[in-house]
């Protein structure tokens, strides 16, 4: 028996899980409908796929949510996991699910997939026969993704960096790399049986003034970490940043760089996709304004040429959105996409060159770390500040980079910290900022720049 299989048996022999039937699950994946695989839909390349967010505690509620989504012509269904399951606290998830079922009151902020189990959840997924995307935020997702794939969920979001730096203060980053290596390997193995399992990185990170160079570098590194374990379908992603031009430039450079780095490896047969998140920062509480913002995001996603868009709702500012609000966004986004025709191509060569140089310089610095494997190189680069994510709560993050918006709302690097931004690019970035201000008024500007969409 392989080492991986031994580890899988340990992980799946869990008191919170019914017995896991490896042979049966393999048969299920082998014979599963191709419609369930988002990688199959990407290959058909007919339109930008629309995927909302959403997860409710009970089976009944989740089923009802999916019915609403299907009525609204959804392309990809979401399954968002509750926070207890994300932190591997299955006992609390179990208790809160019972309370939610008995009292008709939501005690969980998502669907506790491990608690429901794959036999139950698979009935729902195969009934709707649409691709489902697993949305979580789990550093140790081993049990969760085994349960997901066994349920018929063939897209797994996340990664060791993007699911850790925005969400955790002190979960050990080196452990996260190893746990995600398991995830990649399991996805790769199942991908040999049918269409490929798609892995998607979480580009929005903290959604708070993250400069595009940092976003792109982390997307490329998570992509390479997945490909080197045998993943054959991968989505890089980013979220609306605040300037249409910067989003277009980011999309072009991200696509170009992803193709470049993937082709330079032994895994050049992998398919790479681009995903765009509607605005992930603080939303306006005025719901009509929120609708405008969502619509604007859809237009920019089209300009970017995204393969998939992940939507928000008009209730974003007030809490977990209802299924009605969620379905409304899906219908609105589909309508907007239908009427958006004849989009111009926008190119800004100078901005693209600057961003490409920044990305290349950071990637080179990561690759030249003396460690023996890629994940260790990346680990060291985060630890020593070559990669620095603004507003990450994690203790390993350097927090030395300071970013601010310029007059056109592009995110600019004012202080690079230890990130190896080349001199020429750094001068360009700083030339866009107003450096004459004192620090106190700069902090006020940052507060304003974070909440840019609320006014």
């Amino acid at each position, binding site marked *: 028996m392989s080492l991986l299989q031994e580890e899988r048996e340990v992980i799946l022999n869990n008191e919170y899980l019914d017995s896991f039937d490896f042979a049966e699950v393999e048969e299920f994946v082998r014979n599963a409908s191709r419609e369930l695989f988002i990688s199959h839909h990407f290959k058909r390349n007919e339109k930008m796929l629309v995927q909302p967010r959403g997860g409710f505690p009970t089976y009944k509620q989740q089923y009802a949510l999916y019915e609403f989504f299907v009525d609204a012509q959804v392309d990809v269904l979401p399954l968002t996991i509750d926070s207890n399951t994300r932190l591997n606290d299955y006992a609390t998830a179990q208790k809160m699910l019972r309370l939610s079922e008995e009292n008709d009151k939501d005690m969980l902020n998502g669907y506790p997939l491990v608690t429901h189990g794959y036999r139950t959840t698979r009935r729902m997924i195969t009934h709707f026969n649409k691709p489902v995307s697993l949305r979580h935020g789990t550093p140790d997702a081993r049990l969760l993704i085994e349960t997901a794939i066994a349920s018929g969920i063939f897209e797994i979001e996340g990664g060791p960096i993007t699911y850790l730096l925005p969400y955790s*203060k002190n979960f050990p980053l080196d452990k996260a790399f190893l746990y995600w290596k398991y995830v990649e390997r399991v996805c790769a193995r199942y991908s040999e049986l049918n269409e490929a399992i798609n892995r998607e990185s979480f580009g929005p990170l903290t959604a708070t003034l993250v400069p595009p160079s940092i976003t792109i570098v982390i997307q490329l590194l998570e992509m390479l970490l997945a490909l080197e374990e045998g993943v054959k379908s991968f989505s890089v992603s980013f979220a609306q940043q605040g300037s249409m031009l910067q989003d277009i430039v980011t999309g072009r450079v991200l696509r170009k760089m992803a193709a470049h780095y993937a082709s330079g490896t032994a895994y050049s047969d992998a398919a790479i996709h681009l995903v765009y998140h509607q605005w992930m920062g603080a939303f306006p509480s005025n719901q009509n304004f929120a609708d405008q913002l969502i619509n604007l995001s859809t237009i920019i996603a089209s300009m970017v040429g995204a393969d998939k868009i992940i939507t928000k709702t008009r209730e974003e500012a007030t809490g977990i959105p209802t299924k009605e609000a969620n379905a409304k966004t899906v219908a609105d986004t589909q309508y907007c996409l239908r009427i958006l025709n004849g989009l111009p191509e926008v190119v800004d060569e100078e901005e693209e060159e600057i961003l490409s140089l920044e990305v290349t310089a950071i990637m080179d610095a990561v690759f030249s770390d003396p460690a023996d494997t890629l994940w260790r190189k990346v680990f060291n680069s985060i630890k020593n500040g070559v990669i620095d994510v*603004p*507003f990450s709560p994690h203790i390993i993050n350097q927090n030395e980079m300071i970013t601010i918006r310029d007059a056109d709302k592009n995110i600019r690097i004012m202080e690079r910290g230890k990130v190896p931004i080349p001199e020429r690019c750094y001068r360009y970035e700083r030339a866009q900022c107003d450096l004459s201000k004192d620090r*106190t008024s*700069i*902090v*006020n500007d*940052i507060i304003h720049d974070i909440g840019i969409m609320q006014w």
Partner: protein
Amino acid sequence: MKVVTGVVGNDIHVVANRLIDLSLQARGYEVFNLGVNTHLDEFFDAVVETGAEVLMISSLNGEAEGWGREVKLLKSKYQGLDDLIMMIGGNLVVGSGNPEDIVSRYKGYGFDLVCHQIDLNTGLDMLQQFIAERSGS
């Protein structure tokens, strides 16, 4: 002047914490930022370890109310903290409450300065004034 700061309890709201750090540095303080999700005893440990003169605790999710009454007891277990300036700010109750009641309640818990839903720079001005008045008297 040395300041220990952080977000107390199970509270991951990091944005304001980073901005407090930047603003304190801009005003010339030496900052020891413990970040989010910090336990009360970790704050006092850090004060002892760094010899800080100011402890600035922040809270956004309102849970501070839950452990506020433990502050005096915990502080009394440490030696040499009698002159420590204790400040707390952010959103200090779950739901809403009368601001005057909130301030006097937290002063009762042992805080010298209480900033409930007050603008960051206003709060830091209050700290500066407090330090000036104390050194003058």
